[in-house]
């Protein structure tokens, strides 16, 4: 199921602006890796290069290699659509499809990619909603619109939608930043369960969250405003938060930054 990601020498641009420069790291399978760092340092951009969503932005382009097990995502002849089927993504703001019911939202990825029998879909939807800890809250109103749920429920609906297509890797771009502490807790618990099956990469501004949910943590920073973001260090979360090898990381984590 889960796969390892090996990034080497990755540089990403928006038009002529270099957003991140020369990033190399390894994301371990069946674990959660957190990206922390100040705003604008390229965490989200880097995350989006991992499933080729970066090039959806006008002017976005990438240099370098991203190996998923032994395949380069940016190799010639690689279809970005199949990359995104393998590497799912959850966004900062919950974005359920407004024209679809809760059921259809979860089934969207499957339905839009091929045909399934009704009973098969029912099973997958139930499994995904249970996987996202949402089943008990919505099982009686699967035909109601997804946009009628609360923010936290919508975000879990989006997670259910993402895991319904059975990706190898799940990327999460600040999934809790728009949520209250209780919903955040629900999603953090969920990440703990999901990392048994998927490789998880999460961008967060909340360092406690990074410490709680992740096995590895990567710290990003940029030299100055307008400069491209860089990876400062990546290590086991415990090490990063207790005894980081770079002074900048310690400054950032202890709040003495800038």
């Amino acid at each position, binding site marked *: 199921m889960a796969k390892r990601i090996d990034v080497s020498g990755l540089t990403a641009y928006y038009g002529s602006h270099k957003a991140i420069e020369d990033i190399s790291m390894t994301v371990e399978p069946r674990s959660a890796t957190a990206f922390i760092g100040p705003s604008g340092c390229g965490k989200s951009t880097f995350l989006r290069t991992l499933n080729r969503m970066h090039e959806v932005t006008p002017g976005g382009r990438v240099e370098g290699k991203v190996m998923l097990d032994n395949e380069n995502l940016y190799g010639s002849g690689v279809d970005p659509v199949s*990359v995104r089927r393998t590497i799912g993504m959850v966004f900062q703001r919950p974005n359920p499809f*407004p024209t679809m019911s809760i059921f259809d939202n979860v089934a969207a990825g499957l339905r839009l990619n091929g045909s399934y029998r009704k009973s098969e879909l029912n099973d997958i939807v139930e499994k995904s909603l249970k996987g996202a800890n949402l089943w008990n809250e919505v099982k009686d109103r699967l035909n109601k619109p997804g946009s*009628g749920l609360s923010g936290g429920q919508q975000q879990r609906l989006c997670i259910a939608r993402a895991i319904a297509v059975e990706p190898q890797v799940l990327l999460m771009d600040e999934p809790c930043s728009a949520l209250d502490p209780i919903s955040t807790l629900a999603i953090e618990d969920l990440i703990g369960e999901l990392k048994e099956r998927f490789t998880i990469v999460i961008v967060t501004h909340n360092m406690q969250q990074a410490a709680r949910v992740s096995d590895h943590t990567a710290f990003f920073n940029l030299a100055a405003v307008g400069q491209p973001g860089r990876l400062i260090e990546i290590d086991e979360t415990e090490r990063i938060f207790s005894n980081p090898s770079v002074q900048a990381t310690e400054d950032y984590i202890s709040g003495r930054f800038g």
Partner: protein
Amino acid sequence: MNDIMVDKTTDLASAPQTSTLRQPSTLRQPRLPAWAPIGLVALSILLGCGIGVAAGLDSKIQWGLISAVLLVAITFALTAQVEGRRQAKDRLATSLVWICFLLAIVPLASLMYGTIDRGSKVLDGAFLSHSMNGVLTTQPGGGIYHAIIGTLEQVGIATLIAAPIGLLTAVYLVEYGRGKLAKAVTFFVDVMTGIPSIVAGLFILSLWIIILDFDYSGFAGAMALAILMMPVVVRSTEEMLKLVPNELREASLALGVPKWRTILKVVLPTAIGGITTGVMLAIARIAGETAPIVLLVFGEKVINNNPFEGAQSSLPFYIYEQWSLGNEASYDRAWAAALVLIAFVMILNLVARGIARWKAPKTGR
């Protein structure tokens, strides 16, 4: 500071009247009573009519304008005296807005009244189900069946041509268009929006009838109508597609859905209500075009169900034709046809609203 506050509140509580007299509150100010606006309207209408009668003005419009000016002046002066300058400006703006609203309503209401009043005279089942075949133009009788058929067919064909092209152009501009080609398309759509209907008619006339040597037909008219309709559809669809949040596109793409399917299954369904409304309004716009019909469809008194061969009629053409005959019976027919045309456009608008409401993204819990 605290002491003063306490002092003041106890003072106010114990003797409110005397304290407001002695020390006017900064939060309460004298206000005109709630009925003042209505009273002022009544007063200025009375005054306006009085001045109108006294000065011997014939036109009721002059009476109304005098009342309007009086209303603005009296409201401003009185409010400035009682409530102060800021409130006076507020009421000045309010009364101006109301007067402008009424000025905009007057022509619409009088048009509706005039059309219904004069159009309902001969409008009945027979009028809707008969053509002008064999009817003497100076005699009452006859009907608009042939014109309704013509309008429905011409507008229908025009929509079948213009709606898909317009829709796909808008999808191209919003979802795919980058660089010079998209800019050029946008520019030409803008230019097309400004094409007068007679020019569209002349274009088809010279191309279809003179150069390609086809005959006059409903289809030729429909092509000219399609030219007029296309830019309207492109513009409204473009705006609606731009309103679809980018997050939805990204959410779909991140599920591994190809771009064309994302557009087809996520973007278009989200915007379908607005797109339908835009198409309906474009249809309403071309349903009333006369010039291309005069040039290309030529007009006909008998029923011609075939839009691809021979002259046809249409509602706007029928109105023009009957009015230019210049007798009492044809005037009545023209008004009745105008009423039918307005009703047709109104029904289209209502249908568009209904669809927009029905298809709007649901928010209910």
